[in-house]
């Protein structure tokens, strides 16, 4: 028989998450309604109800290193349907922000690169220019090199060309006048 080590709950992590996020994680009684309604659970490594349970049990490393928190699409179905008003999607956001702050090497690094490229583009112009943001994402995530190698870059070039042709991609994106105000917000 294999030795099974019991998991000793440590509520300090849960209390820290509750205090920082204002979300009452301890209210979860594991009905799994969140996971059953989740449209992205097929791509997750741990299910939403497990994320909440692991936070309750103090399993910090497990949740912060999970794919799940990045795979969540923030569709808000879980938070809407939770009978105990646990904001599960909000918890995913809180954990993502924590993982970034702690410099964890996240398993869904491209999704993280997308969010960062997006914020950088807002910082630059005050508004998003989709073309500029996408190029920055391609470089930041390193996806450009994979696409060049595999030849998949053709698809993106065709897509961009078709958008341009339809007048759905401005050639010279405009920025706003009050860029400084927006930069101040982003830089804190």
């Amino acid at each position, binding site marked *: 028989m294999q030795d099974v080590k019991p998991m000793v709950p440590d509520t300090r992590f849960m209390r820290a998450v509750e205090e920082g996020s204002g979300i009452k994680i301890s209210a979860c009684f594991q009905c799994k309604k969140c996971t059953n309604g989740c*449209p*992205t659970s*097929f*791509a997750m490594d741990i299910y939403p109800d497990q994320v909440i349970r692991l936070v309750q049990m103090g399993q910090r490393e497990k949740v912060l290193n999970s794919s799940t928190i990045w*795979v969540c*699409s*923030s*569709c*808000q*179905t879980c*938070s*809407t349907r939770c009978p105990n008003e646990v*904001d599960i*999607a909000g918890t995913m*956001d*809180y954990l*993502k*922000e924590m993982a*970034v702050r702690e410099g964890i090497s996240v398993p*869904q690094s*491209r*999704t*993280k*690169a*997308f*969010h*960062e490229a*997006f*914020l950088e583009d*807002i910082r630059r112009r*005050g*508004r*998003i*220019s*989709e*073309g500029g943001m*996408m190029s920055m*994402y391609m470089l930041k*995530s390193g*996806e450009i090199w994979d696409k060049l190698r595999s030849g998949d870059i053709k*698809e993106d070039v065709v*897509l961009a060309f*078709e*958008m341009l042709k*339809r*007048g*759905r*991609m*401005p050639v010279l*994106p*405009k920025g*706003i*006048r*009050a860029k400084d*105000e*927006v930069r101040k*917000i*982003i830089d*804190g």
Partner: protein
Amino acid sequence: MKVTYYPGCSLEGSARDYALSIEGVCRALGLELEELEDWSCCGATAAHSINHRVSVELPARNLAMAEAKGMDMVVPCPLCFNRLKGAEKALLQDEAGEYSASFQGRIGIHDLANFMAQPEILKRITESAKRRLKGLNAVCYYGCMASRPPRVTDSREYENPTSMDRILKAIGVEVKPWSYKTECCGASHAVARRDMVYKMVGRLYDKALEAGANCVVVSCQMCQANLDLYQDQISEEMGKSYYLPVLYFTELIGMALGIKQARDWVGKHFVRPYHLFGSVGLVDRRPGSRIME
């Protein structure tokens, strides 16, 4: 009727078609949209994913400017709407003075589809309609952000929204019931996890066809993009050949009102609806008519 208008970034780019149809239809209905001057990005998914404070303060800047104008604000992009509503709630509950902007809640923030479905405007649409769009069997696809979570959106019909259903019925479209009105399309995962979007959207196509639809009607430009841009690739992936035009509800209002430019708006989609329109007798079949290209 005059309101402040917050278009959001994608309506200046990939959702130019949506923007043009909104402007055209509102003009025809006598609804004056005054664009919020020097508006900035709401922060979208990126901000709320990795920086909570920024996710409140970016939309808050726009809220404060809109409140100074004093008119209610209408927002076509459901994600912008959601972020603006989230900031509204955060600022109204901000007793500790955590955020730099202030908002007193003197103006209302409205999702465009809900705004257009209010009885007064619905009446205008019905009265100005020049033709009924018979032959279109639509499923209304609302997506997530205009509805959920209701404590943010103030939606009362978040599991079964009906704004577009009511509008489309008023212009003669047959609206098919289905259970996927507010199912997620994957949204911005189209960038870094397109494989996920293909799966999620493929299922939506199947469910729409199962419901008897020949088109999908949307009010969200992210849903439109995910369902429209990759239909060929998803067909290939799923071993099927989907043909499901993905139309904005405003484009259909434009067609019903007889606005000529409506054919150019829908012509900007990847899945061109001309074949569908032709097959149900909604277009001019004369030779040389552009709509039949």
